[in-house]
């Protein structure tokens, strides 16, 4: 194992943040917040282990990402993880989220929702200026929202998040009025994401090509250079004064610059961290996490559960064989997940029994629905008519083998995850399922999903709101978007579920929301549409020269406004 090849540690050792010991009993919101406090460290508070000592000004930090290189640095265009990661330290949003998942103001100072829920007045800070000198005001907010909604921008994430926003206007310089077509309890959560960050209207006016190369924001850093397939350089914004809630300090960042490198291979990325060529890496492999968290390794790991859906198997209930609830239940009863998670991930992740990730509010856990019971699985399959077995031991009905196609995206699933799928394949084979794993590149994988050509699959979806449930499981989203993409891979169509999700998306009463979201998750668990596996973890490795690094809770993205280089 590579962990044995780590060079001798530097002169001092350090405490590292680990997640292995944390409990995952999700009593909805309370546990989620406790977990966030333990697993990640929002805003670099005083108890933050790596924030000891006096900050040192200056220096260059090299960050190596495995998420890939954006084709456009403006996260309004498209809207994916590579854009959010590099953009978070340059572009700021109207709202932020604290470690409890609560919305807190950022570039906004607050918001007022009308009684009918259709008008939202957002009050704005008056002391913020974009790095090109353009003042941040209500006109800037209008220009940004219109940019996201403009078809020519080709937005996917932002435009979807603004689905209920009919128009925005500037009431006065410090008030932007959002007019909605229907109430949207997730609006502020949506506006907190980097994909809906505020950019300089003058920058937007330069046109797409120029703005893609270097969008202009209000953040602690400024895009200064982009050498394709090599690096992006971020330099300090000396006039910075709008740090998010929870940040360790206000005012300009300590670092002179951040060199953002693209290193697709995880082994090379970790080797570069070990040899000191880079200071921070993301997308760590489980064995590397173990090596880096070992005492005296000279490295630390920050983890946080990405908000939105957990990593889970979606059973395509629209087509045979999973259109039969008994067959779905049999599959879930037969799939023995826990031993695989324990062995393949070296204790770096915990089993999840919730469709929502542990960092997303209103997650509900239904562990009893996911107990392993091969006898029950066999009984259910017999009852469903899959009574005979062929020579290879697979169940057969009317001459048809009980085959489940499982397209696996090789871009999204790490090797340990693919091995976990193989273990699920092996354990379900014992009761007669023929699960066929198909490793596919991203485009082919989306094509298979788009044509419903699968029995089960695993898809990721990051959104900092339980409203992700509506996107993934409302029957409206069985209908494909014009692109052919339908988020409701499970093909769930239940009127009560639709009603609960719609109402939860419109009510702003927290108790009512909790009730409705729990009801929705109960329907999903009892109908055996989804098999939750584990949290989608952001795993950031860093050298212990790096001090004051934290994850912004909204999307669990590294925040460098408080970071400095020691020694």
């Amino acid at each position, binding site marked *: 194992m590579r962990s044995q090849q780590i060079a001798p540690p530097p002169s001092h050792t350090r405490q590292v943040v680990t997640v292995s010991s944390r409990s995952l009993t999700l009593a909805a919101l309370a546990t989620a917040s406790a977990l966030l406090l333990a697993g990640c460290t929002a805003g670099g508070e005083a108890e933050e282990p790596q924030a000891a000592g006096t900050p040192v000004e200056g220096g260059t930090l090299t960050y190596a990402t495995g998420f890939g290189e954006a084709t456009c640095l403006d996260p309004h265009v498209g809207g994916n993880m590579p854009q959010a990661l590099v953009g978070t330290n340059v572009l700021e949003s109207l709202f932020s989220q604290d470690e409890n998942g609560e919305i807190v103001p950022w570039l906004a100072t607050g918001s007022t929702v009308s009684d009918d829920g259709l008008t939202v007045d957002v009050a704005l800070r008056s002391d913020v200026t974009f790095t090109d000198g353009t003042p941040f005001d209500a006109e800037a907010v209008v220009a940004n929202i219109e940019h996201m909604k403009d078809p020519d921008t080709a937005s996917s994430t932002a435009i979807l998040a603004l689905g209920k926003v009919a128009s925005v206007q500037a009431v006065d310089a410090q008030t932007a009025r959002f007019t909605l077509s229907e109430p949207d309890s997730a609006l502020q959560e949506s506006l907190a994401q980097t994909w809906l960050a505020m950019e300089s209207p003058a920058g937007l006016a330069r046109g797409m090509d120029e703005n893609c190369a270097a969008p202009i924001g209000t953040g602690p850093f400024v895009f200064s250079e982009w050498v394709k397939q090599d690096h992006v350089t971020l330099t300090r914004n000396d006039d910075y004064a709008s740090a998010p809630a929870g940040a360790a300090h206000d005012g300009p960042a300590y670092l002179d610059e951040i060199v953002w490198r693209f290193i697709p291979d995880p*082994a090379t990325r970790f080797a570069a961290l070990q040899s000191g060529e880079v200071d921070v890496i993301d997308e760590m492999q489980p064995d590397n996490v173990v090596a880096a968290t070992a005492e005296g390794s000279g490295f630390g790991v920050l983890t946080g559960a990405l908000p939105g859906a957990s990593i889970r198997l979606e059973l395509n209930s629209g087509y045979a064989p999973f259109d039969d609830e008994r067959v779905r239940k049999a599959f879930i009863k037969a799939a023995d997940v826990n031993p695989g998670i324990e062995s393949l991930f070296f204790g770096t992740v915990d089993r999840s029994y919730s469709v929502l990730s542990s960092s997303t509010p209103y997650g509900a856990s239904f562990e009893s629905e996911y107990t392993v019971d091969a006898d029950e699985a066999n009984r259910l399959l017999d009852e469903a008519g899959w009574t005979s077995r062929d020579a290879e031991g697979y169940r057969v009905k009317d001459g048809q083998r009980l085959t489940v196609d499982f397209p696996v995206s090789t871009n999204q699933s790490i090797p340990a995850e693919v091995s976990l799928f193989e273990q699920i394949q092996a354990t379900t084979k014992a009761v007669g399922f023929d699960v066929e794993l198909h490793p596919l590149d991203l485009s082919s994988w989306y094509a298979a999903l788009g044509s419903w050509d699968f029995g089960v699959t695993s898809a990721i979806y990051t959104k900092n709101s339980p409203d992700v449930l509506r996107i993934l499981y409302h029957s409206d989203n069985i209908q494909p978007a014009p692109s052919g993409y339908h988020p409701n891979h499970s093909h769930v169509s239940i009127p009560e579920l639709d009603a609960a999700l719609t109402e939860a998306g419109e009510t702003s009463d927290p108790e009512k929301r909790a009730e409705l979201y729990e009801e929705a998750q109960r329907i999903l668990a009892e109908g055996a549409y989804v098999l939750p596996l584990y949290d989608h973890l952001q795993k950031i490795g860093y050298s212990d020269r790096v001090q004051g690094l934290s994850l912004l809770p909204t999307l669990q993205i590294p925040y460098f406004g408080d970071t400095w280089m020691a020694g």
Partner: protein
Amino acid sequence: MSVLARWGVRVAGAVFVLWAAATLTFFGLRLIPGDPAQAILGGPGSQASAEALAAVRAEYGLDQPVWVQYARYLGRLVTGDLGSSYSLRTPVVEVIGAQIGGTLLLAALSLAVAWIIALGLALWSTRGGRVAAAVGSGLEIVAAAVPHFWLAIVLVLVFSTTLRWLPAVSTKGPEGLVLPVLTLALPLAGFLGQVMRESVLDALEAPFVLSARARGESEGGVRLRHVLRHGALPGIALSGWAFGWLISGAVVVETIFARPGLGRTLLNAVQLRDVPLVIGVVLVVAVGYVLMTVLTDAATRVADPRLRLRGAV
């Protein structure tokens, strides 16, 4: 006239190779699932609106029948217009121009290092008797069989993580080139070494070696002045093929060592169904391959005077 005719055939062959590469790539990309209009609108999975998709299809002519698109594409190629990359929103020529330098440097250095290792090994292992021959031949077979990605990871673990002599990822300085070049050069040296050693062995038994020795030339002199030339001949012939092989190896090496270059560009472009960029890169590689073939022919003529004499008859 015969020279002109030979060049005419050669040019026609080159044009055919380029046309075939462009055509196969064009239709090959259509056989794998995935929608280019999606790539233009932020990649697969993006929830682009019907209007946006329709606008993009119209703008890029993707709503036309495939034969019309093909004809248009060939038409543009003939005028030297490679079009614009869907995913990078930049002219293909610019993308390739920015990335080709790194790949050519990598390929050229790897070819040179492979040659030095292969020739050195061939000359040494044919001198020291049976044991040296077995060792040389064994090393060549192992080197030739090693996959690039495996060799790259092993080199990184040994020279970057453990010994800390060399960087694991590409850097601006020459030290960042050492591991990528070795990754490409070692397996190639294995291939080249195998054929060169055979040919050195043949040459050592040739009458002109006997006569040179009879004239009292030293063993080193015989090898340098007479045998080396023969040993090199099949290596020269293989170098044209090696160039294409190095470019395909660059896909792996540039990804693992995080080097900018054509290989990584090609990989990303295929994954994103960026048809103009894929075809652009494939054509550049095809042109490079044709040029290398011409160069190796010329080099063979320089190295082997018998061919020049035959050509004059």
